């Protein structure tokens, strides 16, 4: 191999340092902390938002990176929520182990369903993600002895974290619990997408034929990321179950799968930060609008979708990109 001088090219340097942390990456966390102090009355909402960001992040991993369009991400969210919930309702309220169990069970469901459905592509795959979620939804609905069915799971007793920090009314513990879990998961996901594995996912999304031709085990890669994403969704579901003390059938619903996609699209797909932008916007807006006219929230969000798809592909972050480029181009 010809020797390359260390300063051979800006391209190498740029490439080699892509994964470096940048200042703006601290922004979401700073905002989160600021929100803690600025809106102490909204901590339960903030905690839910943080947990939902994790859910959207898990969706970004399969959709934005691996290019798998899924309408069944709620299957794993709900699995995690029910796992943690059922444990807590049956005498094991320790939150961290509950979180772990949720991750493992959800990942196992992801692995099993992935083994079946990831052999298909296109519309069939989309259908199958939908059917897997519908299957679980129906199972939870019928197994009301365990899940509480339509009424939801009652009687969760979540113990204090480390035996010290109780999940109180004001949501302080919930907030930091969600924040820290999200932060750790984000670190992992960030690492993952910058790794050769993560880049190969992008490769699969961009051109599967080429990925096969360079000898990459495409199916295995997709299965692995699908499983990881399922685990993360499971953690997110468990966080919400533990912090709200309730799990309902809606955690497995198509509506849930659909809205997480919408939140992600609002932020921007395949850029790791779409979830951090889209979810808060959606959740805060929903909180505001729903209090005025709860019924019509879905009308406006539907309209927003139609408009986004028709006029602003790439979401908020995509829009920022374009504005930024235009501003620079003008100079």
């Amino acid at each position, binding site marked *: *191999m*010809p020797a*390359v001088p260390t300063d*051979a*090219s*800006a*391209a*190498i340097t*740029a*490439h*080699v*340092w*892509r*994964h*470096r942390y940048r200042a703006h990456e601290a922004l979401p966390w700073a905002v989160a902390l600021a929100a803690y102090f600025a809106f102490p009355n909204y901590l339960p909402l903030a905690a839910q938002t943080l947990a939902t960001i994790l859910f959207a992040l898990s969706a970004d991993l399969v959709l934005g990176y691996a290019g798998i369009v899924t309408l069944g991400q709620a299957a794993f969210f709900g699995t995690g929520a029910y796992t943690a919930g059922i444990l807590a309702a049956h005498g094991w309220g320790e939150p961290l182990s509950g979180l772990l169990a949720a991750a493992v069970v959800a990942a196992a469901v992801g692995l099993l369903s992935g083994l079946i459905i990831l052999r298909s592509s296109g519309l069939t795959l989309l259908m199958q993600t939908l059917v897997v979620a519908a299957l679980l939804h129906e199972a939870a609905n019928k197994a009301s002895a365990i899940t509480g069915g339509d009424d939801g799971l009652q009687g969760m007793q979540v113990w204090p974290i480390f035996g010290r920090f109780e999940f109180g009314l004001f949501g302080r513990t919930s907030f930091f619990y969600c924040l820290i879990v999200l932060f750790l998961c984000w670190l992992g996901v960030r*690492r*993952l997408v*910058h*790794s*050769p*594995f*993560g*880049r*190969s996912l*992008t*490769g699969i999304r*961009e*051109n599967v*034929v*080429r990925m*096969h*031709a*360079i*000898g*990459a*085990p495409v199916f*295995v*890669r997709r299965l*692995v990321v699908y499983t990881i994403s399922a685990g993360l969704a499971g953690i997110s579901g468990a966080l919400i179950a533990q912090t709200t003390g309730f799990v309902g059938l809606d955690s497995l619903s198509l509506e849930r799968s659909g809205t997480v996609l919408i939140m992600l699209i609002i932020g921007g797909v395949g850029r790791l930060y779409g979830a951090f932008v889209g979810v808060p916007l959606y959740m805060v807006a929903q909180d505001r609008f729903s209090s005025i006219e709860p019924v019509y929230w879905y009308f406006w969000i539907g309209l927003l979708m139609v408009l986004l798809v028709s006029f602003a592909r790439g979401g908020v972050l995509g829009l920022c990109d374009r504005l930024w480029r235009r501003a620079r181009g003008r100079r």
Partner: protein
Amino acid sequence: MSAAAALETRRLSKSFGALTVANGIDFRLERGARQALIGPNGAGKTSFVNLVTGALAPDAGHIHLDGAEITALAQAARVKRGLVRTFQVTQLFRGLSVLENVTLAVCERRGIGGDMWRPVGRHREAVEEAYALLEPLGLAADAARPVATLAYGHQRLVEIAIALGLAPKVLLLDEPAAGVPSGETGRIIAAVESLPADIAALIIEHDIDLVFRLAQRITVLVQGRVLAEGAPEQIAADQAVRRVYLGERDRR
């Protein structure tokens, strides 16, 4: 017994229903050879490539790479053993930079494509290797550009760079200059001509001038069979080949 060929097929056959695309193909590509595969439309050239690379499973026959049987191996395993192809219509990661396109290939070859923890940048040697492949092809200046923004001729070169990133022993070049405006073909021909000597290259090509210029041997495929094989002069003089290409036809 002669030394094992870089690539060899024996009685390779494949049919789709009534349509036979490979009819007992015996084919040999010597190490370091520059050979061309030509034939009229529908002769089975693309099917042959797909059979050899493992995208299609043969009905019968054997494929050997470097003396070892690979007939049953998956596509990815064949790539790992050094059997690499390029595509007639570029297959690139269009949104990624030129450097990243090649880096992805290098990472897979080095067996680090599944690394989920260390960032790509920490595998600096892989990135540098990829960059080093760009320079001789004249792509270094474009390394950071998304491939979709490159002229098509340059995209064809990226296609070759990716293949080289896989350290091929046998390289199947499927019409390397196809679709390129005439002004840009020179660079592609030069790239093929300067392939490392230890790579055995099979060029699937329509352009006869290109074939005569690049290949030491020519195999002519017609209706899933090898019609003729030999040095360019032999092929040029072969009556059967002339018939096929001239389209001479007995008219009662």
